[in-house]
């Protein structure tokens, strides 16, 4: 008797609002532009060429190495991210607010800067494990931030119950806390893995032959565009594998969140006792490796070199360009992500799920491929936009949509539809209920997503080089210009400014994670 209504209810929930569905569909089309371009160009190459490029032992080797690197970095980032998040949100760690900001800051360090700093500081620093180390240090905020936010919001009552039933703290963590963290860890881990697949900066400098390096090399080697694009299709296949893997972990996770965000006792910080100092030292050590090594190296290069950057005016202009295109990129990306995220949270079901997953599909493609696909789109479809900031902004949206979608989904998950229903039952119109109840609840999460996208846009190089308006320099392009002629002292101020300006949104993200809040706790 109860089966039929349940079935009907789930259909009603799956059937999303048509306007929302159309908007989400349009948004995901933008993320899929590069895929269309890849298929077009790969199709032109012909079956023989595709087979010759892909069916080789080399492709298998590269794919295996890329996946191995992604696996190592993802596992390490998950462990490091969860440990750091737990220490800064749930313990009496000294200076935990400082550590929370420090743990978000590596997001501001581009992998090419970190890799360069490491290789010029440590003799013979190269290869698989060197790349893994640099990528771990640059990427662990992707897991730290969502996990810290979840830990901060989760109701500690469940843990109290576990403790009262005789579980020791470790067992409580494993059996009660960790399952609640699973979606946050899986989401962060997915972003880390996709990032590692697409990274070129670290693997190129540290000489690790991954798939993305092979794609870039194909461009460099005899300007072999077709070969490079055919190779890139494999990255889409690898992404599909990762997405499937992440979906598996999600299906096993259930909903744990308490309804609403109020009426919850702040967690009592666990006492670290004699582990307080070693734990603080450990976090300080990680930050020293992730932030200190690049900072020291920049300073050393600045002192040693005699080249100087352009005038203060030029630096300011590059900084202003970086800020405006990144802000525009973040705004457009969030705008496109909103319908997808809302759909996923409000009408969870196969259509919403499909659209959300599709937005991740091209996330592992290297920036140069996304850049070229937008060049194609600009030249053939949107010529008036070609080499304007508009198309560059669109490229950022195509590149970073998943970061925004993840943030919006997470934010809307904390604004259960039932709250909307209550408002409407009290006489509000659907729009008014959404605006006054849901929007205030999800805005902070959306702002956090925007900050994350903004940061990532600031660092982006290959697509920016292809799509920027002629004559427009950003901090990232200036950095590239100077480092490629060994003018490190000239490059240093751009690098420093890039990191310093990115530190502001990184600080905001740390604040959002909740690790900075609750002054009254202690």
């Amino acid at each position: 008797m109860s089966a039929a209504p349940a079935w009907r209810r789930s259909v009603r929930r799956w059937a999303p609002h048509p306007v929302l569905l159309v908007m989400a569909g349009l948004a995901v089309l933008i993320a899929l532009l590069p895929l269309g371009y890849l298929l077009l160009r790969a199709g032109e190459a012909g079956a023989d060429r595709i087979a010759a490029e892909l069916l080789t032992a080399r492709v298998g080797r590269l794919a295996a190495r890329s996946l191995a690197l992604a696996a190592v970095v993802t596992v390490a980032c998950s462990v490091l991210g969860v440990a750091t998040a737990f220490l800064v949100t749930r313990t009496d760690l000294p200076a935990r607010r400082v550590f929370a900001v420090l743990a978000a800051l590596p997001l501001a360090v581009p992998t090419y800067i970190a890799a360069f700093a490491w290789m010029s500081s440590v003799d013979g620093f190269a290869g698989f494990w060197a790349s893994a180390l640099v990528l771990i240090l640059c990427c662990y905020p992707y897991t730290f931030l969502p996990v810290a936010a979840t830990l901060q919001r989760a109701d500690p009552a469940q843990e109290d119950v576990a403790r009262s039933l005789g579980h020791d703290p470790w067992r409580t963590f494993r059996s009660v806390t960790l399952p609640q963290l699973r979606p946050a860890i899986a989401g962060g881990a997915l972003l880390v893995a996709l990032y590692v697949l697409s990274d070129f900066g670290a693997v190129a400098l540290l000489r690790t032959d991954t798939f993305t390096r092979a794609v870039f090399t194909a461009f460099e080697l005899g300007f072999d565009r077709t070969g490079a694009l055919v190779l890139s299709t494999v990255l889409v296949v690898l992404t599909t594998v990762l997405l499937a893997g992440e979906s598996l972990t999600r299906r096993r996770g259930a909903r744990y969140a308490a309804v609403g965000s109020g009426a919850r006792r702040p967690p009592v910080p666990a006492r670290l006792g004699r582990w307080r100092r070693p734990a603080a030292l450990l976090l300080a050590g990680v930050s020293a490796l992730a932030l200190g090594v690049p900072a020291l190296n920049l300073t050393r290069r600045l002192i040693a070199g005699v080249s100087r950057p352009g005038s203060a005016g030029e630096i300011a202009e590059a900084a202003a360009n970086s800020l405006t295109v990144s802000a525009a990129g973040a705004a457009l990306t969030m705008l496109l992500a909103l319908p997808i995220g809302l759909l996923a949270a409000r009408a969870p079901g196969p259509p919403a799920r499909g659209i959300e997953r599709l937005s991740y599909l091209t996330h592992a493609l290297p920036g140069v491929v996304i850049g070229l696909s937008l060049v194609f789109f600009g030249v053939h479809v949107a010529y008036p936009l070609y080499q304007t900031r508009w198309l560059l902004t669109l490229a950022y949206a195509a590149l970073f949509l998943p970061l925004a979608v993840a943030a919006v989904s997470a934010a809307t998950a904390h604004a259960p539809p039932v709250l909307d229903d209550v408002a409407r039952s009290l006489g509000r119109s659907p729009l008014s209920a959404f605006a006054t109840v849901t929007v205030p609840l999800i805005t902070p999460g959306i702002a956090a997503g925007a900050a994350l996208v903004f940061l990532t846009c600031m660092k982006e190089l290959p697509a920016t080089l292809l799509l920027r308006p002629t004559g427009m320099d950003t901090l990232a392009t200036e950095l590239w210009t100077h480092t490629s002629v060994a003018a490190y002292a000239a490059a240093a101020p751009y690098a420093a400014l890039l990191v310093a300006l990115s530190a502001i949104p990184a600080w905001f993200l740390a604040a959002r994670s909740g690790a900075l809040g609750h002054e009254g706790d202690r």
Partner: protein
Amino acid sequence: MRQFRARSVVAVALCAAVLTGAAACGGDASEPNNQKILLYSGRNEALVKPLFEKFTEKTGIELEVRYGTTAQMAAQLAEEGDRTPAEVFLSQDAGGLGAVNKKGVLATLPAEVLSKVPEAYRAKDGNWVGVTARSRVLVYNPGLVKAEELPRSVFDLTAPRWKGKVAIAPTNGSFQAFVTGVRVQHGEEKAKEYFAALKANDVQIRENNIAIVEEVDAGKVPVGLVNHYYLGEIARERGTSPDKLNARLHFFAAGDSGAMVNVSGIGVLRRSADDPDVRRLLDYLLGSEAQTWFAANTYEYPLVGGAPAPAYVPPLADLKVPPIDLNDLETLEASIELIKSTGLTP
């Protein structure tokens, strides 16, 4: 309170988006004789921008320059096809010009322009011309290798005594040109054999030439195959002259493949073939002011008669260049297959 802050971040981002759009409109540089040229540069901004500024100062012609790597620019030009806004392509090497020329987008240059440069350093079909030359050299650290032990031929580097001591940058355009050079001069079989032997001799792979010269200078690697001008670039960054560095340059014996010379060069997109502004740029770059400037500032060889070579290298005329045709560098596929098959690149 926090929600308020969050909302203002979103608002600021949206405002920025609108402002960005408003600022995005610009003029079209590609009309002929409008005192403007749109140039795609595969050469680095830090290297050539000062020269472009001199040109604008002298002629009043404004240069809008799009900077990138030569490979990226070539890919972008190929993707843009006939709709490219570019008028001129300045390339880091002959291979990049050849690749773009193959797409049929370059115009034939006037005979007066072509004739300024020796025949060896321009396109057979007259669609591009060299601007400066760079020689392949062996950079070495005298603390690790004595001058009298240096190899006469690049082929000697496969000997056991060089095992693990030679650095190369196989993804670099100049290295690929070198591979083509070996193929053209000695045939496929010997080329394949040679690069396989190099790989088997534990050759050290680096991402680019700068990394090689720095490591040789620091004594981390004894020798490396690079272009001659990197020593000058690094010396300049350290505020010194090339002869004060530890690293030294060694030129291979006459006619050896290791001594080949490549060019940076320029091509004009078809639609701007008759643009007088573009013609003035070509004449300027191949004139004595620019040629002298290149030798003094980028440490390259001038190609047009009269301008002196950089101080720390022998003059171009004294180099015993192997008989390798730069026009053959556009047939890179076979070289790339060779590089890949020997496992020198991913």
